[in-house]
């Protein structure tokens, strides 16, 4: 036990490897939020009148809301007036035309993160729309995508170039009034990604966006909108890392997926925002509203997430299975170490006939981490022959962490079949012992066992992401296991 304790101490001391600050000048708005902030953001981005109206309506509604407190999270009150709502790299006016013109410091940042942006992007066959703070700085593979009719650009570009699509779909999955943080995002969102896959097109490559929070005291409020037309297919990857800061930074994103007839959207996330130090100081407050609407028959949406970062995670990627024969999937690995808290899960709303959903979650708690799965499976009155299978497993490492499970199951149709299973356990002493006597070091053994625990989820991730996710898990667990 003492050996374990010393290893814990030693490993707890491991530092966040992505904690660097890119020193480039940013221009932005001073901290504070009122109607003029919303107008200023809209003006910065030269948005059309209808979008400004939409933002203002959201802002007015937001003023009437209070922050939710039902999650199992210990949140210090957030001062929304202390946050700067817009920051952009100063080079915005003469935006780089190609990657060669991009600020080398910026590229260096991505280099350290291992983003396959430049050559690596080509080798990996990944088109990266890198969002740096709030403004998209470089998009690759745009041409190749354009040839098959796929639109993949920053959100602000989409507002300028494809206003009809944005106007038709924006807020149609997550309405302005949906919840406190989604509403705030609707008012002040700065940028994000937009993706449109035309009818019958199978997107030729995996689309990917890297979000980074860089400037101090900037909240990041990105907005992603993905539309898959009839019979189309797309796989979208999102990865997040953020540098080290002492204050808790606010992040409130909204992701809307619209899956039309027989389309398939696969959305994978690796989230590694700064989790705060070993005393729970600093770290990102991550409030995300992600929802997919399987609007027409035969659509399928699959969410995969690996959550290793953030001081605080509040995130429930959901599927509204509206069409008949639609499918929703949710695969998640959430890890909390030190003083991290995560309240995450999913909602599967079965409304159409023959709808199916599957939920596989793996929660790992270490240090003083608190990990909560909160999920809802709702089968509506008309959802004949709905089928759900949920499995939620938790692993506890150490005496001071917690793992919680709150599965809500609501069934109103007598032909539905719903199953939920959950287990909580720690790493088996005998498993460890077996590995040790085979000459595997304790740390490697734990890493192996944790990896095996998460395997069901990792195999859903695209190859490059699976490798990164595995590495991240190892880094994040350093200092927790013994």
């Amino acid at each position, binding site marked *: 036990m003492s050996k374990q304790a010393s290893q814990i101490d030693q490993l707890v001391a491991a530092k966040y490897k992505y904690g660097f600050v890119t020193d480039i000048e940013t221009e932005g708005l001073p901290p504070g939020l009122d109607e003029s902030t919303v107008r200023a953001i809209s003006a910065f981005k030269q948005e059309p009148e209808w979008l400004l109206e939409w933002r203002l309506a959201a802002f007015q509604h937001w003023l009437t809301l209070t922050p939710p407190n039902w999650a199992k999270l210990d949140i210090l009150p957030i001062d929304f007036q202390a946050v700067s709502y817009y920051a952009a790299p100063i080079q915005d006016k003469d935006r780089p035309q190609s990657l060669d013109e991009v600020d080398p410091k910026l590229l260096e940042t991505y280099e350290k993160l291992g983003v396959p942006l430049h050559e690596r992007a080509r080798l990996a066959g990944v088109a990266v729309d890198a969002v740096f703070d709030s403004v998209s700085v470089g998009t690759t593979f745009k041409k190749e995508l354009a040839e098959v009719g796929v639109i993949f650009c920053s959100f602000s570009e989409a507002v300028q170039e494809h206003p009809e699509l944005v106007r038709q779909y924006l807020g149609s999955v997550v309405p302005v009034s949906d919840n406190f943080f989604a509403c705030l995002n609707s008012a002040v969102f700065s940028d994000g990604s937009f993706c449109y896959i035309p009818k019958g097109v199978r997107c030729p490559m995996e689309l990917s966006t890297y979000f980074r929070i860089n400037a101090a005291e900037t909240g990041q409020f990105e907005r992603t909108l993905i539309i898959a037309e009839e019979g189309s297919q797309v796989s979208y990857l999102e990865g997040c890392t953020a540098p080290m800061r002492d204050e808790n930074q606010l992040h409130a994103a909204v992701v809307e997926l619209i899956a039309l007839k027989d389309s398939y959207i696969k959305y994978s996330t690796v989230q590694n925002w700064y989790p705060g130090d070993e005393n729970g100081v600093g770290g990102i407050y991550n409030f995300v509203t992600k929802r997919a609407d399987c609007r027409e028959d035969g659509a399928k949406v699959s969410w995969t997430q690996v959550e290793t970062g953030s001081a605080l995670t509040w995130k429930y990627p959901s599927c509204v299975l509206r069409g008949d024969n639609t499918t929703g999937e949710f695969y998640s690995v959430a890890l909390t170490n030190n003083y991290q808290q995560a309240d995450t899960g999913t909602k599967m709303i079965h409304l159409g006939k023959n709808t199916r959903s599957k939920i596989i979650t793996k929660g790992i708690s270490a240090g003083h981490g608190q990990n909560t799965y909160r999920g809802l499976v709702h089968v509506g*009155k008309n959802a004949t022959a709905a089928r759900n299978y949920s499995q939620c497993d938790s692993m*506890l490492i150490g005496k001071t962490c917690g793992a919680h499970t709150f599965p809500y199951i609501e*069934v109103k149709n007598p032909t539905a079949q719903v199953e939920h299973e959950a*287990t909580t*356990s720690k790493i088996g002493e005998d498993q460890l012992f077996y590995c040790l006597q085979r000459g595997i070091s304790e740390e490697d053994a734990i890493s192996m066992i944790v990896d095996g625990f998460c395997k069901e989820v990792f195999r859903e991730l695209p190859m490059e992401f699976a490798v990164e996710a595995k590495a991240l898990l190892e880094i994040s667990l350093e200092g927790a296991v013994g």
Partner: protein
Amino acid sequence: MAALALAEYVNAELAAETQSLSWLHDLRTQAQQSLQAHGLPAEGSENWRYSSLRSLLRKPLSVSTDVIVDEQQLLSLVALEKNDFRMVFVNGLYQAQLSLVPVDIQISSLATELKQQNLSAYFTPLPEAVDAGFSWLNASRFEDGLYIKLEDNQVVEQTIHLIQLSVGDVLSHGRHIIDLGADSSLSLNEHFVDLSGVAAGGLLNTQMHILVGKNARMDWTRTQALGSKSMLVDRVDCQLSKGAQLHCTHLDVGGLWIRHDFNVELQGEHGFIQVDGVVLVRGRQHTDFHTRIDHQVENCTSRENFKCIADGRGRGVYNGKILVQPGADGSDSAQKSANLLLSPHAEIDTKPDLEILADDVIASHGATVGQLDEDALYYLRTRGIDVPLGRKMLMRAFCQEVIDRVKAPVAREQLAGKLDQVFTQMEIT
């Protein structure tokens, strides 16, 4: 006294105390203050999200008056013999002439006991959660209930029956205390029954406080077969000492609107708790089962197995929380909620919660919602059993797993008999 809505009772001033007990007076005043400050659980309350109080609050209720109940009728209602030990409460008040108690143990009515000793320890502290309205309502107004105190090593061989009878549109607040000394043993069969007829029904707001001493054991069955208009809000708080065992099986087949809160604190090592239940909701019945098992110390075991069948416009709610406190290593808990949903207008809401704050634990839970197996029905038909009977057989078999877990043969047969009776009377097409 004219019938009033429940909300009016909540706001009414407390009646002047007939007994001059200062601690009781303080308790009632404090409870009433909490009640007036927070009221009954509000619509948005998380613990009450599936159970709206709307129909409850509208219900006209009167206070208890003397009712004459025929002993024979009562005994046949609960299928008991004349010489079975029993404590009978009609609308919350003790009926000595209908009861039969063993002389060698301390068992009496709470009203009698309050006059003889200070029982304040059993009532304090009052619950503080903002949604504890019904507890405060009970604490401020209870009059009577069951009181059992077993000395160390006292073993009660014969089963004791607790009969709570509701007659008419009456609001009652039964308050029961069971305190088992070290190495003692008790088996209790509880019956909620009704003689209101089809037109009327009361509201029973009962509270039970159970202390199971070191290595003591309690076997307990609870059969709720209230009338079609009656409502029940029932709260049980159990505290188990080292090595204590409590086996409790519920059978909920009656009533219109039922809410159970079953709270267990495992306070000593190697405590064991098993809470099972069979719930049947039909017509417009609503049954909400909340359990909360708190593993406070190391090496305790908890088991839960709930089965619910929802038909007609019935709604079955289950919320089982298992809490493992920091340091409660070696905790072993398993929780199962299996549900049959048989009608397009019925609803099942189930939520098995786990809150785990220690690492060396085994905790698992499972929940399922499904239908009767068509293949099994088909098999029965090929053997000459028609669909309605086949359905009954499968439903009865679905419940049997819980019945089989009842240890005492007499109690097991009694529950099985009650279930058979319910299924025989049930109309199924």
